[in-house]
């Protein structure tokens, strides 16, 4: 029968193709470049987000893989960031975190992270990448870009009035054309509180790099235009740590400073730096 022959021929072709072997793809190890560049990870997370501990683990792994070259800010905005009823002691949400989370929209879900605010190829996720196992490769790519700016930080904390003075010195290595913004994040780590994790809750989860406040607007303050190579650009900021039970512990707090482009369609971070609140 005609159709039976075609049936058999199709089967033979299928089996023939299935027996083809591919040349294996080369999978290398992470590249750790020699550079003073520091990359910023802005991680969208939340206490009520079941998949977010996975994002936290990946961020910590990236910090371990590239020691001293990565700064992380954990943004507890609106989506899945509400405290867990009957379990959470703290509410990590704040207006700056909410504004930032909205600024990164759209994204598919949490966890998601923006790496140096670089644009992705996905117009439905232009800045924040929700596939957390891709974050490290973007960090690698960013670290391989030329280092163009140094940021030096000095922080002084007054135990009596909880006042902090932050001195920032930026030194362009090359001439930087265009407009630039500065953003200063105040983060806190080692906060023990409840966290949703898959199908369960972890009561004593260690929350790290939690964005507590910003010393600038959520989208940054103007830093300058056409920055000349080797110029010293200085800024001074002051902040008083509020008194909130269990939170704003200066021993566990850091400033993360980043300078980014401020051109339409390009908000790329060119350098980040971090320092403990106590210097």
């Amino acid at each position, binding site marked *: 029968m*005609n*159709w039976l022959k*075609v*049936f058999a021929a*199709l*089967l033979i*072709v*299928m089996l023939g*193709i*299935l027996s*083809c072997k*591919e040349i*294996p*793809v*080369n*999978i*290398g*190890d*992470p590249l750790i470049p020699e550079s003073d560049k520091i990359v910023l990870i802005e991680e969208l997370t939340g206490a*009520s987000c*079941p*998949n977010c*501990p*996975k994002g936290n*683990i*990946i961020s*910590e*792994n990236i910090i*371990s893989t590239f020691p001293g070259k990565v700064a992380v800010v954990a943004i507890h905005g*609106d*989506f899945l960031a509400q405290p867990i*009823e009957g379990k959470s002691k703290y509410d990590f949400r704040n207006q700056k975190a909410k504004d930032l989370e*909205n600024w990164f*929209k*759209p*994204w*598919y879900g949490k966890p998601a992270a923006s790496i140096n605010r670089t644009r992705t190829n996905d117009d*439905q996720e232009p800045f924040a990448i*929700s*596939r957390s*196992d*891709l974050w*490290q*490769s973007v960090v690698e790519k960013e670290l391989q870009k030329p280092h163009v700016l140094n940021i030096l930080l000095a922080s002084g904390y007054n135990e009596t009035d909880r006042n902090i003075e932050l001195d920032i010195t930026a030194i362009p290595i090359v001439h930087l054309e265009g407009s630039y913004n500065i953003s200063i994040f105040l983060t806190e780590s080692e906060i023990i509180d409840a966290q*949703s*994790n*898959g*199908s*369960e*809750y972890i009561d004593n989860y260690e929350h790290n790099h939690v964005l507590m406040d910003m010393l600038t607007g959520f989208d940054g303050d103007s830093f300058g235009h056409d920055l000349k190579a080797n110029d010293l650009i200085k800024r001074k900021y002051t902040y008083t740590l509020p008194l909130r039970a269990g939170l704003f512990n200066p021993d566990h707090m850091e400033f993360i400073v980043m300078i980014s482009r401020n051109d339409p369609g390009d908000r790329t971070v060119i350098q980040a730096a971090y320092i403990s609140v106590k210097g």
Partner: protein
Amino acid sequence: MNKGIVILLLQFVINLSLYTQDRGVFSGAFDTNANIFLRDSSINAINTPQYDHQFFGGEAWLNLNYTINGLTIGARFDMFNNSNLRNPTGSFSGLGIGRWYVKKKLNKLEISAGYLYDQIGSGFIFRAFETRPLFIDNAIYGVSAKYDLGKSWHVMGFVGRQKNAFETYTGNIKGVRLEGFHSCGDENPITLAPGIGFVNRTISDENMDNVVNAIRTYQQEDRFNPNHNAYSATFYNTLTYKTVSFYSEVAFKSADIFYNPFALKAELVGVSLGKLEQKKGSVFYGSLTYAAGNIGITTEAKRTENFNFRIDPNLQLIRGLVNYLVPLNRQNTYRLTARYSPAAQDISEMAFSLDIKYKLSKALSVGLNYSDINTLEGDRLFKEVFTEVVYKHQRKWQLTSGIQFLTYNQEVYEMKTEVPLVKTITPYLDVLYKFTPSRALRTELQYMNTKQDFGSWLFGLFEYSIPSGWIFETSAMYNVVPKKANSKGVIEKTLYPTLGVILVNDAQRYSLRYVKQVEGIVCSGGICRLEPAFSGIRFNLNTTF
């Protein structure tokens, strides 16, 4: 590019119709949704661009087809304006030619090019289809050829790329299908409708880079050598003997990369959930139907293992699906009975269903449906018992009533933490009363009793239709025993009202509704996604010509 092709096609058809006697057949359809978003924090209708600053969003599709002398051409104009269909928490705008195609029959050969919809078997290895409410348009942008091997057999082959909004995903897909029909003769009432299909998907270099970038970050025990190609094959047949019909299909997939959200991934310290894997997959499906006299019975079974098949393994949720997994649960239509609907699971699922319909008399019929879905490891995913009694009193009124018992695994279907299985009991009543053949009142009343998720619900609907084609409707969903705090942190009884007016005029249907809708699952077939709450005004218009 698409616009140029469409202009070229129109020019060609105009020329053709001028030179032939045949004027051809022209048909089309227009479909539009327009939404006005009214922020309401009490039901969590907040924090999307539409509620925050856009306030308006909508979509429109205009479909045109023309057939002349065995040649069919068609095009579709798509428009998305601040639409939340693509990403329920985002906004998408875009407009242009969403589809064009040309199809020509040349004796036994039929050739097609453009954006094509088709499927092999039940769709386990390939289905190119469109589901607008979920922003699924998986048309293949390519060519296909179909050749008739005699009266009842044909072979079809295709090659192309999968559509992604107004672009295509990178990566190629090609396939072949042979299917037909065979009767064992007049004396022997056995018929067979066998088929075989084969699909190959090749991952693009760009997408493979992302796979490699992910694998590079994995610990040694989770790493694998990724293949660019995945091959899938399916064998299916419908055997009919008198009043019994048995459809069976088995599908296999070669070792293919997919993201398994339930797999344990080793980390530098500890483990996390979810990673890329490369494994073989399979689906076994059977459906046995008996229909004779007053009784109709259908029973189905399906076993699915590692059958996530996408054009790009980096895609998740409902994006880039190459295949379609048939759902075995009942496709419910009433608001509360459809509230918890399971998405077909592609990693691990064992599903059974039984559907019985019995006509006791001309006026009275009863139905029973049972669905049971577990993981292959035996974890309960979904169970439903649905009963239905339909009583028709002459042509004056009709009563439909029954009860639904349901168990739903919210942890798996909605990725929620430490939530128990949702167990519901939902009696329902639907009464249609016809004052005259064109003037009728339809009422629905449903009560969902549950201690989980949002708590218990009451739903009522009144729909009054008059001869001029107008339908007036009002409905409300009321959280009578609430369990969940709203965005203000308060557990309170909330009313979700809908008020609407519909006009049906020949093939045109207009509807205007004020809607408050609770967050829930929206499903089409076995494909579902979590949709946020809606508050606002909705206008729909659809027409065919």
